């Protein structure tokens, strides 16, 4: 789960050749913008069949938080 999630996440942000840590606050990446956010929403829907409402998403700060949220929602 973790490797696949990180791969997908890096692909959306076009961070393939960089290191991504679970503690990274993804909104701080230079690559983060509103279009990338939309691509993340689309990726979560495509790959995991989940949609995180914007109010919920605001509370998610790090790559690890996002992965945990995905885990929580897909295990239901």
């Amino acid at each position, binding site marked *: 789960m973790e490797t696949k999630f990180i791969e997908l996440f890096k692909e959306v942000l076009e961070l393939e050749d960089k290191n991504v840590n679970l503690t990274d606050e993804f909104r701080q990446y230079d690559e983060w913008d509103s279009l990338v956010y939309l691509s993340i*929403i689309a990726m979560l829907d495509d790959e995991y069949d989940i949609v995180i409402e914007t109010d919920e998403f605001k509370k998610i700060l790090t790559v690890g938080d996002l992965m945990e949220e995905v885990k929580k929602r897909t295990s239901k």
Partner: protein
Amino acid sequence: MAFQTIPNVIISGIAACVPKNIEKNIDSSLFSNLDDATKFIKSTGIVEKRTVSDDLTSSDLCYYAAEKLISNLNWGKEDIDCLIFITQTPDFIVPATSCILQNRLGLSKECHAFDVTLGCSAWVYGLSIMGSLISSGNFKKGLLLVGETTTKTKSKQDKSTYPLFGDAGSATAIEFSPGSSGFKVHSGTDGSKFSAINIPDGGFRSQTNLNSLDMVKFEEGVVRNKLQYIMDGAAVFTFTITTVPKSITLLMEKSQVENENIDFLLLHQANKMIVDKVSSKLKFEEERVPTSYEKFGNTSCSSIPLTMVHKISSHLRTKKLNLIACGFGSGLSWATAYFETKNIICPDLIEV
């Protein structure tokens, strides 16, 4: 469930009108560099759009579309007994623009005319409203005028809205036709998210005041005042990819129509991401999902009729088609219709 079956009506013709002026996103000063602009165009698919000059309104664009359509249909103006104008950019706060259009088009004073305020769900809602009024045979010929000069509501310094939108107007002729299968419609509303697409001031909840015109910077490239349009793109995207496929699937089930029997899926042209996502979820291949966002941007309520005129007019003129149309946007509001057309009148796109 908000399902309607509206028999005994047909669409007889569709026309669309856009302003001549083209703005290309690659030239936009809103993007900090060429890379940013290219990335925006690649994601949204919006290469260019049409924008009105200050003196052109939504009703002007609809007027030109209507004149051309009435003339090509050979309709007598005295026979048009119903006119509905749907927009979020009317000529005036008072009166209803439909009254002005009744006179300008030279329609009879025996004409039932009113305005409706809706955004991107407007055209499909219009089919259901006009269809219901005509279905009984009380009215025989109706003009549904749907248009928006949406760029007038956007801040030119707001990259989260301005580059996405374009201006357009449309006219759809709807006629009483006893025995026709008519329109099947599913609609829905979620007002809890109304602020996702909003112009804060200028109505009567928060009237225009001395601070309404203050330009406020929200982030780099996002500067606007309170008389200008706000869109929470992520909230709208999240809503769309969940709600829209559901509405279309529900209507198809209810109407007992299979995917392979639909000739074209006509989606509101929000942008490439949304159109692609909804089409792939519903398993409609590209060829059956005509688009207009590339050349016209998101034209709000006009986007479905504009797409029909822009991309499938030759099919509309010469064939019998099974169509699904779905509009979704401000409100939040959405509506899906299933209907047939056969050899309808569809003039070439009008440019003014």
